[in-house]
Structures are given as structure tokens and as C-alpha cells.
């Protein structure tokens, strides 16, 4: 460390600007490389070509594809929460259930969803329910694990407090264990929301007529590479916004659960 510390204001400004500057620099470098080596568009399109391609696609078409992906991702995410949290609570209550279910959960988790997805489509048809299921398979394991961890990490003193009050187990769960698990659940939610987008895209790759994943695949197969890249960036931005929304939800509704600075 240098002896001379920059004043804190400058420091904060530099820290805030650094990622953006780096990003802009990367894009510029990319543009330069494409121009300097005159790379053909179907190998690596320049950022300017990608922006062009983005605006050539009609806004309403983007929205149709976005909605198709978002719908599946969010439904999968919600269903996952609705399934994972009760499973985690049930596993906390019963060791037998934990023993019975856990191996199955691990098997589901370690089976590549990409490999199972076509079978699910065959089994259930290429509609939203099968896509939601594919998304769920990807998202619910991290949620179960993080929720169960939070519930089980509840300090024994808090449990003792509950027992000393002779309170019903239901309240021990809802007033102590679940709130205690909130920061853990949010860690799981942050992982799950990005996985939900991946799940929706995987499902579209297998069988779909709309959605951003479908759009990328379809553009690639017609060698519209800049358009595929445009779809990819759009998808990345959507995914980032969803991730941020989970963080904002935690900041607004559960500020106490954030790590202390």
C-alpha cells in the first residue's frame, strides 16, 4: 500500500467507475479486433454489427420472445420456491424424510438437465408445463439446500428460548427458524434466478416456437450471427436484472438479513 491514500471520495468514484470502464474498454477492443483483422460476421460480429442487428428486429418481436422466456423462467422459479421451502421444512422436522429424500435430490441434481430435457418434452409435450418442469429441476436443489442449511444453522440458544417458553413447534418454525433462514434462502434465490433463465433457454433449445433461447438458436441456424449475439446480450441483460431484483427485494424487505459492512 502506498503511504499517500487518495481521498475517500475519489476512491469511491474510482471503485464505482472501474467495472463500467473495463466493460467499455472490452467492447472497444472487440470492435478494434474485428475491424483490424476484418473478421467475417459469421465468425465474430463486431459490437456495432450486433447493435445494428438488435434494432433491425422489431420491438414487438423482442417482447414476444422475452415474454416467452420470462414466463417460463419466473414460473419455474416460483414453483421451485413453493416446492423447495416446504421440503426443507419437512426435512428439518423428520430425519426419516431427510434420509429418504436426500439421495433422490442428489441424483436429480447430478443428472444433467440438458440430457433429461428431451425426454421430458417427449413425455409431457412441448408446452409451458414441461418447460417449467425443466426449469424447476435446475433451480430447486440450490433452494432446498440453502433453506435447509439456514433452518439447521439456527443457534441452539434460540431453540432453547423457544422450548423454555413451551411454545408450539409451528411457531418455533415460523417465528425463529424460517426468519433465521432468510439470508440463506436469499443466497439460494440468487443462484436459482440465474439458473431459472438457463432452464428456460435449455427447454427452448429442445422444442419451442418462441423465446430468447429459441431466437438465438434459430438465428444461428440461419447464419444470422449478429442477430444471435443480439439475442444473447438481451438475455444476459434480462438475467442480470432478475438477479438484481432478487437483491433489491432483500434490501427492501429484509434489510436486517444483509451482511454487515
Amino acid at each position: 500500500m502506498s503511504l499517500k491514500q487518495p481521498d475517500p471520495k475519489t476512491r469511491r468514484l474510482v471503485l464505482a467507475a472501474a467495472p463500467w470502464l473495463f466493460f467499455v474498454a472490452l467492447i472497444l477492443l472487440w470492435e478494434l479486433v474485428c475491424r483490424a483483422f476484418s473478421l467475417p460476421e459469421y465468425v465474430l460480429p463486431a459490437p456495432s454489427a450486433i447493435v445494428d442487428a438488435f434494432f433491425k428486429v422489431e420491438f414487438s418481436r423482442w417482447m414476444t420472445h422475452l415474454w416467452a422466456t420470462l414466463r417460463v423462467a419466473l414460473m419455474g422459479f416460483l414453483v421451485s420456491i413453493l416446492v423447495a421451502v416446504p421440503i426443507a421444512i419437512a426435512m428439518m422436522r423428520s430425519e426419516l424424510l431427510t434420509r429418504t429424500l436426500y439421495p433422490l435430490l442428489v441424483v436429480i441434481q447430478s443428472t444433467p438437465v440438458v440430457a433429461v430435457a428431451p425426454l421430458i418434452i417427449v413425455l409431457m409435450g412441448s408446452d409451458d408445463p414441461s418447460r417449467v418442469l425443466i426449469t424447476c429441476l435446475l433451480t430447486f436443489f440450490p433452494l432446498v439446500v440453502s433453506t435447509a442449511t439456514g433452518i439447521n444453522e439456527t443457534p441452539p440458544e434460540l431453540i432453547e428460548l423457544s422450548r423454555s417458553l413451551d411454545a408450539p413447534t409451528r411457531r418455533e418454525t415460523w417465528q425463529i427458524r424460517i426468519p433465521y433462514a432468510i439470508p440463506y434462502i436469499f443466497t439460494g434465490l440468487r443462484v436459482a434466478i440465474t439458473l431459472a433463465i438457463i432452464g428456460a433457454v435449455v427447454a427452448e433449445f429442445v422444442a419451442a416456437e418462441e423465446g430468447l433461447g429459441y431466437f438465438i438458436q434459430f438465428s444461428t441456424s440461419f447464419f444470422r450471427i449478429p442477430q444471435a449475439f443480439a439475442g444473447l446480450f438481451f438475455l444476459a441483460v434480462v438475467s442480470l436484472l432478475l438477479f438484481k431484483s432478487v437483491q433489491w427485494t432483500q434490501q427492501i424487505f429484509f434489510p436486517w438479513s444483509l451482511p454487515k459492512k
Partner: protein
Amino acid sequence: MTGTATNRSFVRLSGVGHRYDPDPATPMAVTGVDLDIQRHEFVAVVGPSGCGKSTLLRMISGLLKPTEGEVSVFGRPVDGPRDDVGIVFQKPTLLPWLNVRKNVLFPLKHKYGRYSHDDEKRAGELLEMAGLESFADKMPDELSGGMQQRVGIVRALLLNPDILLMDEPFSALDAMTREQIGFDLLRIWEENPKTVLFITHSIAEAVLLADRVLVMSKRPGTLLEMLDVDLPRPRTRHTISEPRFAELTERLRKHIYEPEAA
């Protein structure tokens, strides 16, 4: 107020012991404890780490069933957690998602699912008594360790228990905070008399606060000695500089370090 035969015994332990492992070959955590505590008596328990002080406290609270002997309160055997016991833990164990006021009201919310306007008033009064009224709307992590433990004590008083069980409540605090909160506890206790069982490993703290100090042996924990503390009340920081205080702590140290000689 010290242990005289004229007062009816309030908490009685007869031949109480506990073994965590059901296997009879394993050692007892606590064994053969006979003890009578008078109503509104302040009893401190000292002893080496792992001597079963906390086990003893948990058996009195009803959280742990003795494997031998019996604990009774006011002549009724203790067979589970009871309303008339408040517990203060070593850590403040506040709920980080509730503000100070709601933490204090938590026992009611947790036990009955709700609390009344009067309860809120009572919580406010208790907080005021502990000098915490300006912190009522703060979150626990905005409070110092000493303040958090004060909230823990106030919470234990909410249900107005007859018995206050304190398991090394000040051991996580720095020396100065610890002394201050000790005097605060005495003041609160004098205003709202309770039967207190106070576990500590500080000999000076035990003598300063209690009417009677019990010394426990190493595992298996059993009562070695009882010492009546005849220092006048109310006790203040001047008590510490009295010769009698030094004499009593020295006697306790002797019991602990050279049990055979004592």
C-alpha cells in the same frame, strides 16, 4: 433474607443428578445436588468450566429432566418448561429481525401468538427501568454487547417470572460493562424481587451480587461449599473496597483452589 429455616423453601433440589448418556458406565454431569433456595434469594453458582453449572440451571428451568432426584418449585415437582421462569442466556440471543421492543415482547408473541396494548406498555416500562427506552425502535445490531444483554434481561422479565435463571449472562462483556450491568441487575432485582440463580465463573461477581454463593466441583459436578454473603445491601461500587468483600472472595478462592484445606 439469606438461607434461614424461618423462610419456606421456594426452589428445592433433592439428590438431583444428570447423566447425558443413558449408558450407566459414563460419568454423571451433575450428581447428588441438595439445595434449598428461599423466595427472592439471589444465589450465585461458581465452579470450573464443564462442571455442570449449566446442566443444573437447565434442570431447574425444566428444559432438562434430571436422571436422578427431583426438582420442585413451591412444592410442585418440575416436569417441563414453566411460565414462572425467565432465562437469560450467555449470549443475548436476540432475534436480529425484530427491533428491541419486539424482541422484549417476543416471549408473548411466541408463546401465545399475540400481545395486548397493556403488554406493550409493560415492555415500555421495563425498557425504561433498564435505561433502554431510547433504544426501543433500534435493531439489535445497532446496540453494543452490554445493551443487547440488558435487552435479554428485560425480555426474561416480561412474563414477570418468580424465578430468574442466568447462565453466565455477562461473560461475553468487557470488564467495565460487566461491572456496570451487574449493578443495574441488582437495582432491577431490588425493585422487582425475584428468586435468582446466577451462574458465573467470576468469584468477585458472585460475591458482589449474591446472598449466597455455591461452589461446584469438577465433573461430576456436585456442591462442594456454600458461603453466605453478609455484605449489606444495596451494594454499590464501594462494596468492592470493603475489607469484608476481600475476606469473602478470599474464602471462596480457598474453597476452589484448595478444597481439602477449606
